[in-house]
């Protein structure tokens, strides 16, 4: 319950708790980052504009990129085959700069559902989907997604039939994962662009399903 705050003595006029200001001194690593950045600029290795451009590029990544890949796979069987064989190459083929990321796409079908988690940290296909949601990084999601995944899915509103196989993928090392959701019924007439609008971030993590048309 988002507005069920218990600390009623410290609420802002809008009813939310005040967030603590982060005006403490720089940490050791923050100081080192500033020092190295300034040194690189001073020595002409990088310009401030290049650094800003890289930050902008990272901020521009969003689930819309993954949704475009999914929609293409729904409409182009040969592309779907390539995506399932080598996710990285398929994403690059669509023009997404995914760096050295090793992408594995796992397909939801009539009898299989896939769910992605990283129990050890917060591995996520950021190069394709942008930043992970906060809950993806919580100890609760990371532990429960492997311990009681069907209960977790129910909390996300996804009730799997008993005869459906759930495959949980723990990103423990060098791969990053994206779920290729099943194409919703009643979308035969839709273009790839319109299909992409049905593909949610959570449907590519496996905690959700695509929207109905």
């Amino acid at each position, binding site marked *: 319950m988002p507005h069920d705050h218990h600390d009623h003595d410290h609420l802002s006029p809008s009813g939310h708790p005040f967030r603590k200001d982060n005006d403490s001194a720089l940490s050791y690593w923050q100081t080192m980052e500033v020092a190295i950045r300034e040194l690189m600029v001073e020595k002409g290795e990088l310009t401030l504009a290049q650094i800003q451009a890289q930050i902008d590029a990272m901020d521009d990544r969003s689930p819309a990129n993954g949704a475009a890949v999914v929609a293409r796979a729904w409409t182009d069987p040969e592309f779907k085959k390539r995506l399932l064989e080598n996710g990285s190459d398929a994403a690059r083929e669509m023009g997404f700069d995914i760096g050295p990321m090793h992408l594995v796409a796992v397909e939801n079908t009539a009898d299989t559902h896939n769910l992605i988690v990283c129990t050890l940290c917060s591995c996520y296909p950021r190069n394709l989907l942008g930043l992970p949601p906060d809950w993806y990084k919580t100890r609760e999601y990371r532990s429960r997604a492997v311990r009681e995944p069907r209960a977790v899915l129910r909390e996300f509103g996804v009730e799997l039939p008993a005869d459906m196989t759930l495959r949980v993928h723990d*990103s*423990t090392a060098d791969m990053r994962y994206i779920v290729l959701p099943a194409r919703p019924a009643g979308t035969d007439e839709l273009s790839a662009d319109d299909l992409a609008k049905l593909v949610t971030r959570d449907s590519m993590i496996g905690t959700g399903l695509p929207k109905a048309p």
Partner: protein
Amino acid sequence: MTYTVGTSVRIKAMSPLGHIRTPHYLRGKTGIVERVLGPFKNPEQLAYMVPAPTRTLYRVRFEMGHIWPDAEAPQDTLDAEIYEHWIDQDAT
């Protein structure tokens, strides 16, 4: 040695300290090689910025009912990436 797809493998039950990529809940468990991912530099050494040899990385599939005896759906599976040096050669 390289394990082929479909081979049954057991994960070592050791508990070394440091940066480890094999989750505790899979140690000592047996699964099936789902795919061979190829050679990668061993992250357990990369993390300490020391020379890291390449090791073969596998995706290993475990049955939920094997990992968790009280699993709601024992036939569900869990896939994880496991480095070759975590596979118990004496058990395969």
